[in-house]
């Protein structure tokens, strides 16, 4: 992700400004019941992500986004079929031991939660794909977050990649020795690589502590090129947009009704 962030067109934007902007949009999406607001924040998130990455997302991240959306679809689907029994059902059925009871409200709530969730994902990804961890940690320091926590974030982030690299080397090494010859052997190989990576992490921690000491590490990671500072423009834009969206949400609560939109398709009588 850092690699992506360093090549982002938004890398030189103030990390704290971006964080404030994203947080404002996320919070306002939660404060209003209008589905229009999360749809707008989701759109903003998508646009920011596209601008940040120039629409060049690595396959691994695309798969991760796809997986997250799939989980949200499943979660929202569950919410939609667990409606309040005091309300009229749009769809009522029994599947094995499971009672399906979908109401207009549960269906709309599911859509609201779905859009809130994917708006969160796109906004956070827009932020993460344009903000390298060292710059973020530096920005967090100005928020008076304890140094220990920040250094832990940086170290974990740094070593996660090394361990992943090591794991992949072990997987390749296993492949060279027919480690995937049969499903049982493949499982054993993966398990071995995971255990090996864990043991290596302990060894690496010990060696890295010594190496850090040799480089005069005194508890904080200094930054060579400091990120841009958050200007007042960021505050104005973030809060202005949040307030605007909040009021928009107040007056458009019933404007979009997904149950009514899908009613002709499923023959629901609303």
């Amino acid at each position, binding site marked *: 992700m*850092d*690699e992506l962030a*360093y090549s982002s067109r938004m890398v030189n934007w103030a990390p704290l400004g971006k964080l404030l902007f994203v947080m404002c949009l996320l919070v306002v999406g939660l404060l209003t019941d209008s589905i229009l607001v999360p749809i707008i924040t989701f759109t903003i998130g998508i646009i920011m992500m596209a601008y940040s990455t120039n629409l060049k997302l690595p396959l691994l991240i695309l798969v991760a986004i796809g997986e997250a959306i799939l989980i949200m679809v499943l979660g929202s689907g569950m919410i939609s079929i667990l409606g309040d029994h005091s309300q009229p059902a749009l769809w009522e059925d029994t599947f094995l031991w499971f009672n399906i009871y979908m109401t207009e409200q549960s269906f709309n709530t599911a859509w609201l939660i779905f859009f809130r969730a994917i708006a969160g994902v796109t906004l956070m990804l827009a932020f993460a794909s344009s903000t*390298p*961890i*060292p710059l973020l940690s530096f920005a967090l320091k100005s928020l008076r977050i304890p140094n220990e926590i920040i250094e832990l974030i940086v*170290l974990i982030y*740094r070593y996660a*990649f*090394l361990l992943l*690299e090591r794991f992949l080397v072990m997987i390749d090494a296993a492949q060279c020795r027919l480690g995937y010859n049969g499903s049982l052997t493949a499982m054993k190989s993966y398990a071995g690589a995971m255990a090996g990576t864990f043991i290596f992490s302990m060894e*690496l921690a010990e*060696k*890295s502590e*010594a*190496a*850090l*000491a*040799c*480089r*005069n*590490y*005194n508890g904080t*990671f*200094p*930054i*060579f*090129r400091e990120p841009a500072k958050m200007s007042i423009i960021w505050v104005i834009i973030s809060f202005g947009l949040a307030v605007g969206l909040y009021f928009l949400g107040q007056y458009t609560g019933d404007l979009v009704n997904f149950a009514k939109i899908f009613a002709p398709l499923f023959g629901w009588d609303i």
Partner: protein
Amino acid sequence: MSEIFRLEDVSFTHPGGTRKVLNNMNLTIEEGSRNAILGANGAGKTTLFYTLTGVYKPQEGTVYDHGAPIEYTKDGLRNLRSDVAVILQNPDEQIFCSLVEEDVAFGPLNLGLDKEETAQRVAKALRDVRMTPFARRPLQQLSGGQRKRVAIAGALAMNPKIMIMDEPTAGLDPQASMEVMELAEKLHLQGVTVLISTHDIDIIYKWADTSDIICDGRIEYSGPAEGFYSDPETVYRCGLLTPSMFNMNRDICALDGMDPAPYPRNSCEFTAKFGNPKKSGRIICVGAEEEDAPAKYEEVMKDLSGVQTGVYGSDVRYALTDKNIDIQFDAMDMCFTGAVEGKDSVLFYDAIYAPTIKEQADRLRKIGFDVDMEVI
């Protein structure tokens, strides 16, 4: 030379371990010396380095830094580590930042240097290891060899008084290895005490004045390398091998009934000793700084065509990138070998290497070959 480090009966056992990794070790490191620390895997070399930097505190014995015992306090260790830089065997253990330049700047910033000074040091260190084009690249994108260079740059940027290099050439291609040895020599000429541990015995034999041989946590031998390599049983017991140059000299001398001394340490000395050279080729040595190297090149080369040219040192190599240079690496040895063979050559070198060039000519003289050398 005064002593910079002294170990007196030092023993160290890793926590939870039973074997003494350092076992009553006694060792003295002289200031400004070229030291090779040699030993088989597991002999205790890396542990020795960590002991010298105060990372490991020995359970027995004392480590002296400039004649005073190391103080294992926060301030004491900070002072010690401000003077001592370490290049670890595995660069991944010492690289902590995401970007190349960030990592090189890590040490200088920890020393409390300002941004301007740090930026200068970072630029210089990256250029010395030929990594300038990679300054803004994430480290994950680099190969193992490139990471090694970044690790070396990180140590160089500290401007240390003592440089400890643990297997600095491991994982590097031969050209990069030569550059590392050039850097080690440059540091030595700048007055830095350089300690190198390596398994590349041929490269280190060329360079080191003193070899300290570690075997099972003890110092088996300290002194000029020939004294150790002349005892094959001890060499074998210590898990080492003799360098090719030493072997060839010993064997040819045995065949011809000659005295193996003086010992040739590189190609030009070997050729001078055994090649029956007639008349020396002329070697024009041009010491230059980065700024004036292109002008000196033009001036010297306008009257010389077809003469082989070589560069020695990163500054001149960088400055003469777009010039027609025949020998980019190991040029000093190759130009002097050319001279022994009767060929003329021009050697452009960083001005700081002047004593090394002179030392090489003196060594050839001791072997009995008077090189026709002109220094510009």
